[in-house]
């Protein structure tokens, strides 16, 4: 059997259609001072030729697959330790108490700050280079008669329970053709320069949200205690020198967004074989089929199956060729 690269592209294109494949998740991470959660909903877009067959060595390249973020919101929550000014004793009183200066506390709420950063405008890219491998899955005994007993018993049990087959997991061995990724790249930020500015803007918005309503004197007092307010918030959020790297770490490491994308692709291309052929291969089912009543005094005829001795796979620039060898009866 041979399958063309164009045919595989048609199948993969249908598989990646937004109605079938969406990347949806709400990952979150919490530190000492701040927590961040994400609301993610994305679909995949690609050109006409997404899958590229290569034959030296035999590899499949999935190239220029774009992640389009329909929603990519990062919600930050910042809890700043309470800062209080005033309240000190001006004059001792007659009875051991004192006359105190007015007291004013800042950052009493929990959290003190909630801000959303919209990253939905980003375009992210994925590329995968994978080997095409043939493997053999053993889900049942290799003893043919015992395997038939197991299948018979399992199907009879299903029938007794009023259910129909197939047995899940299937009691079959199979030749599987699977993709094993050699490289799996997810590039979340295709415009890193802008990301730095975005974080600076976030910090300014944060400061404004925290102290924008305070009178000038109070801001002066706070800056007297905490230094630059932007610097203060930057420290609270643990933003280092490179703002873009900070955001990249949150998205890429703390929230593991690339891992979420890879998991979706894994489900289709890695966790499951792209082609499977049962061994032995059934050519005639039980007669009558298990679950159907057998005529009185007549036996149920066993299924006829043929062994698949070998499965070879060969990749060319234009097609993948699978050759199955049917074993001779021995």
């Amino acid at each position, binding site marked *: *059997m*041979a*399958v*063309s690269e*164009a*045919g595989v592209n*048609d*199948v993969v*294109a*249908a*598989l990646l*259609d937004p*109605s*079938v*494949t*969406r990347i949806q998740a709400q990952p979150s991470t919490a530190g000492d001072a701040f927590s961040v959660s994400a609301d993610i909903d994305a679909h995949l877009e690609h050109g006409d030729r997404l899958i590229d067959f290569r034959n030296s060595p035999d590899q499949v390249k999935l190239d220029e697959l774009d992640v389009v973020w329909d929603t990519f919101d990062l919600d930050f929550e910042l809890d700043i330790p309470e800062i209080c000014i005033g309240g000190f004793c001006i004059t001792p009183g007659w009875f051991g108490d004192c006359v105190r200066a007015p007291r004013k506390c800042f950052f009493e709420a929990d959290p003190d700050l909630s801000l959303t950063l919209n990253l939905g405008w980003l375009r992210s890219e994925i590329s995968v280079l994978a080997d095409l491998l043939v493997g053999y899955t053993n889900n049942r005994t290799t003893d*043919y*008669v015992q395997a*038939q*007993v197991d299948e*018979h018993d399992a199907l009879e049990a299903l029938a007794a329970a009023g259910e129909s087959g197939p047995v899940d997991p299937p009691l079959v061995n199979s030749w599987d053709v699977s993709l094993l990724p050699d490289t799996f790249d997810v590039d979340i930020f295709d415009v890193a320069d802008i990301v730095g500015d975005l974080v600076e803007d976030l910090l300014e918005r944060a400061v404004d949200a925290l102290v924008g309503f305070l009178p000038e004197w109070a801001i002066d007092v706070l800056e007297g205690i905490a230094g630059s307010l932007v610097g203060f918030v930057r420290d609270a959020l643990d933003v280092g020198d490179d703002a873009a790297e900070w955001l990249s770490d949150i998205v890429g490491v703390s929230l593991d967004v690339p891992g979420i994308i890879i998991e979706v692709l894994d*489900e*289709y*291309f890695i966790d*499951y*074989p*792209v*082609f*499977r*052929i*049962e061994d032995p*291969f*059934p*050519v*005639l089912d039980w007669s009558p089929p298990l679950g159907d009543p057998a005529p009185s*005094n*007549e*036996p*149920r*005829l*066993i*299924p*006829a*199956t*043929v062994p698949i001795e070998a499965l070879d796979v060969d990749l*060319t620039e*234009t*097609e993948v*060729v699978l050759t199955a*060898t*049917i*074993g*001779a*009866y021995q």
Partner: protein
Amino acid sequence: MAYTDHSDVYGALHEEGIDRVITHLQRKRPSLFNYGTARVVAGAYAAAEVPPPESVDGRRGRLPPCEVIPYAPEVRDRRWNNPLMTEEDPLPVVGTDGLVGMDYAVQVTDLGIDFAPPGEELAFKDQQYAANASVCAGLGCPGDADLDGALETIEQFRSYVDRREGLELATATNDRELLAEFGLPAVPRADALRCFCLDVEVVGTVSMVDRPTVEGPLTIPQSPKFEIDDIRLTDLETTNEFPLPAGFVHSLECYIEVFLRLGVFPSLAETVERTVQQALAMQNPVLTLGGLTATVELPTSGTVPYNPAIEEDELRVYVDLDVATTGGAP
């Protein structure tokens, strides 16, 4: 030139692979290839040195079949107790009102597909195939004493019917209980079957017929259909050595054709058709997982005039896939 120059998917079954499928089928469904009367069935189990099923009554004698029946061990496993032969009624003797029959066996011992003309004298038309079969048959010819016994039994029966008022012979010969009382139909014993084997060649055509089936996520609107166009004896050496009247040869060919066409061929063709169909269905876990459906189309064109095509010892199919999404991520 790539296999898939003219389609998304290309599939080919080599005649050697089909022959192996048939051999497995012969071993696992021997009753599909071996037919005989009750005594012959009992004789088959005795020849194979295996205990017969309860339904086989060996008390009326045993006659070994023409050829020992090869079978897979699981056929006679006590859990399934599958038959080695299909039991048939005795061959009625003309002129006895069906009251006397003869033991017989008919066995298809070898069967193989040939996608290329076997000789110059047999030029194939487009898309024809040949199936070479060896058919062995034998009749149990009774001795004089057994014939006399059978004659005596039917005379007693006829005399009884004559004596009974209002009982017609036609009615009596259909009364199973009455027949059983007289031990009818009588099957005079023979010492052995008198067997002969003939090589026959079946010439047929493979075509696609509208027969929509659904194999997992795939809809296959058409299925391959193997049909018989002609059948002829090819044991030319034998017929030359012992010339037979042409009418006899033609009658024999006619009977074998009817036997193969109605008895053996439907199940055999179903097996091969199903193998082709399952190969077309390409058990594709990715399609299933993605909730995709696909319709298989077998296009024809100037470059692919026949689909399926019989070429170079192979049955070839050229398939286009029309993939559709049903919506809903896994």
